[in-house]
């Protein structure tokens, strides 16, 4: 029996690489073309340095969109279920509201899988953890 395969979008914020399920992504966009007030940055994932790309996801309200500012979109990886791992129970107990839903083992290195809708909710509910640089425009 073939193992279920998950499509994961790989992206980079700062020096770190993250993954998220492709079905949460509406499209990849250009930060400069995003509508004012729709950019999501300064999240708990860290600070961007290039702010070149945007991962567009559905917003909280129907018909709206939010754009997570990232430094690079690295592509899509097909990953079998066996490479997806849940967060340890102690981690979910200590960080109950984390936008990280689990980890994916890529070349034996654990990479965080981000729940993009949860990240958008987290960011809209709290001030930026990593404020954008002064030259950044929203």
């Amino acid at each position, binding site marked *: 029996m073939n193992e279920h395969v998950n499509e994961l979008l790989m992206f980079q914020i700062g020096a*770190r690489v993250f993954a998220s399920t492709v079905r949460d992504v509406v499209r990849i966009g250009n930060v400069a073309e995003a509508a004012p007030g729709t950019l999501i940055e300064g*999240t*708990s*994932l*860290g600070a961007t340095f290039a702010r070149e790309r945007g991962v567009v996801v559905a917003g909280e309200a129907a018909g709206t969109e939010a754009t997570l500012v990232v430094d690079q979109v690295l592509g899509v990886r097909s990953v079998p279920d066996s490479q997806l*791992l*849940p*967060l*340890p*129970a*102690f*981690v*979910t*107990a*200590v*960080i*109950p*509201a*984390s*936008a*990280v839903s689990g*980890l994916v*083992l890529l070349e*034996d*290195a*654990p*990479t*965080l899988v981000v729940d993009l809708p949860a990240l958008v909710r987290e960011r809209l509910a709290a001030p930026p*953890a990593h404020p954008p640089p002064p030259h950044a425009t929203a």
Partner: protein
Amino acid sequence: MSPPGPSSDAHPIGHGATGQDAWFFCLRILGGRYAFEAPLVVEVVRLGPLTRLPAAPAFLPGVFTHRGEVLPVLDIGQLVGQGTIAIRASTRAAVVHCGPWKLAVISDGLEGLVVIPHRHLEPPPAESSGMAEFLSGVARDRQGTIAVLDLPRLVEAARSRAVPAGSAGA
């Protein structure tokens, strides 16, 4: 990797480990010698590449994978406010089971198993701050003083301190 054998300065296997003795797992943290109940230790492993977690408290520097399992890393030094334990390529961790939690406790060095006769265990100092808050006893062997940690209580304190009052879950 299994836990190292008993310290040669403590009672070696066969000479101690009677009903009058207690087994502890001893490690060095920020210049001190600490121990906790040996049965809590599942194994000793070399720390793999650490993945840091967003919004994690300082005592949880990240997670790593070991035999396909993701293990959280606990920095006891950070938890009790005594400083950060440096993580190096050679860092090893004691994988422990504390109630429902399985985690990897890092240290500056692992000494391994020691046997301490119950009669040599003394009450902890009356201090209630830092590491002293989590001590269940103090013992001495030929290498010096060993502070015995109540690890389950320390892990539970970590969990409760990280979760804001009124938060769901946990």
